[in-house]
C-alpha cells in the first residue's frame, strides 16, 4: 500500500513529466549540436537521414551512446539528487511526513518505500532516455555498426567494432549498469535530505557535492584521492561496450559503487530512524 501511495504521489507531483520533457530537450540539443558540428566538419555536406544501415562512423547508435554518456555523468545525477531531496526533505518541509508517522508505519517502511519508488523511477528515466536516444538516432541518422575508438569519451582502450545487435545488447546492459551507477548519487541525496530539512537546500547541496566529486575524480591532481570518490567509478557501464565484455571488471566496479551506495543508505537510514521531528 505504501509503495502504491509513494508511486501515486510521484505521479501527481509532475516531476516525471518535467523530467521527461527535459530529457527530450536535452536530446534535441545534443542532436542539434552533432548536426552543426558535422556541418562544420564537412563544409555543409551533412545528410542526416533515416536508414537501418548507416555505414559511416557517426550513426544513430553513436549518437545514442554520446547522448547517454553525457546524460549519465551530468544530467541524470541531477534528477537523482532532486528525487532524493524531494522524497525525504520535501515531506519533512511540508510536514506531510507527520501524516505518515501518525499511522502505524515503521520508519523503515517509510524510508525503504521511498527509496524503492525513487530507484524505480530513476531506472525508468534511464531507460526512457536510452530508448528515446536510440529512437532519435534511428529516425534522424539511422543505425549501423557501432565503432568505438580510444578518444575523448575513453570508451575503450583499443578500437572496438560492435555489430548492430551486439550494440543493442550492450545498450540494454548499460541501462542496468548506469542505473546501478546512479544509485550512489541517489543514496547521497537521501543522506543529505535526512539531515537538511529544507528540500531546496538538500537538493542544491546534493548537486553541488556531486559536481565537486565528479570534477575531482576527473582532474589528475586528485589521483591519490580518486579511489575514495564514488564518481570515479560512475563510468563503469562503459565496459558493456566491448567486443568481449570483461564481466570481472564490471562486477568489481559495480561492487565499489554499491559499497558507496549502501554506506550512504545506512547512514541515511540511521539518521532517519533516530532523528526527532521538530
Amino acid at each position, binding site marked *: *500500500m*505504501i509503495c*502504491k*501511495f509513494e508511486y*501515486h*504521489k510521484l505521479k*501527481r*507531483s*509532475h516531476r516525471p513529466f518535467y523530467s521527461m520533457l527535459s530529457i527530450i530537450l536535452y536530446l534535441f540539443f545534443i542532436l542539434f549540436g552533432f548536426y552543426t558540428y558535422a556541418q562544420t566538419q564537412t563544409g555543409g555536406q551533412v545528410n542526416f537521414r533515416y536508414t537501418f544501415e548507416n555505414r559511416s562512423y557517426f550513426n544513430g547508435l553513436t549518437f545514442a551512446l554520446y547522448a547517454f554518456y553525457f546524460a549519465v555523468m551530468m544530467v541524470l545525477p541531477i534528477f537523482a539528487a532532486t528525487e532524493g531531496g524531494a522524497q525525504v526533505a520535501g515531506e519533512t518541509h*511540508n*510536514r*506531510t511526513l*507527520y*501524516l*505518515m*508517522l*501518525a*499511522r*502505524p*508505519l*515503521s520508519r523503515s*517502511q517509510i524510508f525503504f518505500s521511498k527509496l524503492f519508488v525513487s530507484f524505480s523511477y530513476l531506472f525508468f528515466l534511464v531507460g526512457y532516455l536510452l530508448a528515446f536516444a536510440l529512437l532519435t538516432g534511428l529516425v534522424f541518422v539511422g543505425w549501423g555498426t557501432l565503432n568505438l575508438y580510444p578518444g575523448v569519451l575513453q570508451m575503450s582502450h583499443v578500437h572496438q567494432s560492435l555489430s548492430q545487435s551486439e550494440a543493442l545488447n550492450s545498450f540494454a546492459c548499460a541501462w542496468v549498469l548506469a542505473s546501478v551507477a546512479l544509485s550512489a548519487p541517489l543514496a547521497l541525496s537521501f543522506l543529505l535530505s535526512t539531515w537538511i530539512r529544507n528540500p531546496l537546500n538538500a537538493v542544491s547541496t546534493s548537486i553541488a557535492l556531486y559536481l565537486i566529486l565528479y570534477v575531482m575524480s576527473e582532474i589528475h591532481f586528485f589521483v591519490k584521492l580518486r579511489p575514495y570518490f564514488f564518481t570515479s567509478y560512475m563510468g563503469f557501464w562503459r565496459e558493456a561496450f566491448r567486443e568481449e565484455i570483461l564481466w570481472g571488471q564490471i562486477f568489481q566496479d559495480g561492487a565499489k559503487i554499491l559499497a558507496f551506495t549502501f554506506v550512504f543508505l545506512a547512514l541515511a537510514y540511521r539518521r532517519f530512524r533516530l532523528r*526527532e*521531528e*521538530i
Partner: protein
Amino acid sequence: MESTDILVTAKKIHHVYGKRQALAGVDFDIYKGEILALVGANGAGKSTLLKILAGFLRPTQGKITVFDCNPYSQREIVMRKVRFAFAPPPLYDNLTAWDNIQFLVRLGLPKQEHPSCEDMLKVLKLVGLRDRLDDRVSGFSFGMRQRLILAQALLPMPKLLVLDEPTDGLDPLAIRELRDLLCRLRDEHGVTILLSSHLLSEIEKIADRVLFIHEGKTIFYGEITKLMKKKSTLEIKIEGDTTSIAQMFPQMEIASSDTFLLPAETISLEEMRVKLQEYNIKLCEFHHRKISLEDAFLKELRAMSQKEKT
C-alpha cells in the same frame, strides 16, 4: 478512576530545545472516554507536548506512556489506537481530497482492516467535503483543509483522538457541528479526545477536564466544573456602615463603595443576612457571579505570576 481507564500517563515531562526549556515538569493523565482540553498561549509548549505524545520527540526528562507503550520507540503500536489531526493541517497538495483520504486511512493496516469506500464517503460527508472529492487539496481553503485533516483522523475509528487547534479557520456553524461531532464520538463511540485549542468558550462547552500550561509549566490541571466553581464569586451589595465588613470577611474584595466580592461557597444567603443584621447592615443584593473559563484561565495565570514573584 481505575488504572485500566488511564490511556495516557505523563510524568514530569521536560523538553529542552537547545537552551530553551519548552516543557518543565508537566504531569497529566488522560482517562478513557473523556475530553481533555490542552490550553495555553502561543509558545506555551502545547505543540511540543503533542509531538511527544505522537512519538516525534523524545522528552528530555520524564516518562510518557500511551496505551502502556512508549510512543517514541513503539510508535507503530501506539498509532493503531491513536489518531492525530495536526495544525496547521499538513496535506498532500498535489493529490485530491479522495486520494488523501483513501491512501492515508489505509496506511500500515492489513487489507482486512482497511476502511471501506462507504466509510470514507460517510466521513467526508460528515465533514462537508462530499462534493469536493475530486478537487485538488491545493485549491482548498484553510477551513476545508481542517475538515479534511479531521476526516482522515476519524478512520479507522481511534480510541484516542488528538486534535490540534481543530476550530482554526472554521466558520461558527462548522465549529458548532464539530462540537456536536466530538460529543457524539465521545458519547456514542467512547472515543477519548485530547483537544488543543485557543477557543476557551468552546472548550468550556465540551471538555470534561483541562490542562492549562504556560511557558512549559502546568498552571491548572483538573475538572473544568471544579475550576469554574472555585473561581466564581459572590457579589454582595449592602447599605449602612461598611467599615466592619473587612473584619467580618478578611478574604473579601471591594468592588465599589457599597459592593464587595467573596469567593463562591464562602457563605449562604441566609447566613449572610443573619451576619449583616448583627452589625446593623442592610443586605440589598446577593448574586452568585459565574466566571467564564477564559477569566478563570487569566486568574490562574495572574495567581501563578504573583506566586512566582513572591
